[in-house]
């Protein structure tokens, strides 16, 4: 048993990407750490969120942050692009999988590709495979959030979400995860990545109306 984080949910919209993750570090079924930050800004173009083992995730995050420091020390005007971070993470995770000693995480890399002027989002998992998509959810989010996000996306018939729509989708996904995932948590953080840069929000709260539930469900008020 190790401390691990739950789902990370990411939604691309026309101008950027939103990533959200709750702030609990679970130790099995114990909510051990309540203010864990699992979504992080890397540089002005890239943010990452991770689920799974918090120690492994922090280790890789530290490496990424060191790479950003190296970039700023070199001071040559180039930064790590979203794809570069994505590729690096894939290679590292795949390499460790080949050594049969994985980093036990699923990472979502969210960025705004300034050259292509398009948002970018990709997911890498502990087995070392990666995929790019405009809606991604890791962990329990795959079962709870992703179907909802897909139905919203398909209702738009190929048109990307607007920022407000993406926010709604994300908020509802996080609320669903809190309501349905045993290891869920009502507090979460959102990172917004767009052409202007990366903005991390304060802790937000899922508003779930349990009053509408059956009489015999009791204990949680929000």
């Amino acid at each position: 048993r190790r401390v691990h984080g739950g789902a990370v949910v990411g939604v691309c919209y026309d101008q950027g990407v939103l990533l959200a993750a709750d702030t609990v570090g679970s130790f099995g079924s114990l909510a051990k750490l309540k203010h864990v930050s699992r979504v992080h800004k890397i540089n002005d173009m890239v943010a990452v969120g991770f689920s799974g083992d918090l120690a492994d995730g922090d280790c890789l995050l530290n490496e990424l942050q060191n790479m950003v420091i190296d970039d700023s020390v070199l001071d040559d005007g180039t930064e790590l692009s979203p794809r570069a971070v994505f590729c690096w993470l894939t290679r590292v995770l795949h390499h460790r999988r080949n050594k049969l000693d994985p980093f036990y995480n699923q990472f979502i890399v969210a960025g705004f590709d300034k050259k292509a002027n398009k948002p970018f989002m990709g997911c890498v998992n502990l087995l070392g495979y990666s995929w790019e998509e405009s809606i991604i959810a890791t962990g329990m989010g795959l079962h709870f959030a992703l179907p909802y996000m897909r139905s919203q996306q398909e209702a738009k018939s190929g048109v990307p979400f607007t920022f407000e729509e993406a926010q709604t989708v994300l908020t509802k996904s996080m609320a669903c995860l809190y309501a349905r995932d045993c290891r869920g948590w009502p507090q979460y953080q959102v990172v917004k990545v767009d052409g202007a840069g990366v903005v991390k929000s304060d802790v937000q709260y899922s508003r779930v109306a349990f009053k509408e539930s059956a009489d015999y469900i009791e204990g949680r008020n929000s």
Partner: protein
Amino acid sequence: NAEYMGGHTRLSEGYSILSRDVERIQSIGKNCVIGQAGFHGDNQFLYKVLQTRAKIFEFDHGQALDCHSTASLLSNLLYSRRFFPILSYCLVAGVEQDSQGQWKGRVYGYDVVGSFESRPCEATGEAGTLMLPLLDNQVEFKNLGPNAERVPLTRERAVGLIQDVLQAATERDIMTGDFGQIVLIDKDGVQQRRIPLRRD
């Protein structure tokens, strides 16, 4: 004088769909494509290595890798990991000029450790066993009765056949679906098209 390769674009993990839009057929050089089934992580890794080796070859020799050389290279790459295999079921397809200067299409099928063979048609992956009998029957005219019509394979018929075969696989295999990626390779290069497949 042309080759067609078809693949699907669904990435699944167990019973979940991770992505509906993952392209499995990618090009190496001008007249050659590689389609990969199996473990997606190893597929990506193998493609990167293969692409890098192809670039190095171009820089060293001043010409692009042709189809049989790519096939041979891939075989060696796969065998180099004989005792920790790259779980990638590859197909290499392309056109190359023979000694008379005629362009001929070729398909090479592989196993995970690199044994390969050039065949008139090949199918690989989870649904490969579903598609291969149909291809044997329509491309190589195997298992046809003496009076059955043997329709020669033109380009249009080949595209139709690949579409039918992908649809058939989608109907029966849970991991296949979403979009079919159909790639035509001829002496002028590679063209791609997509067809919708069942999304269930």
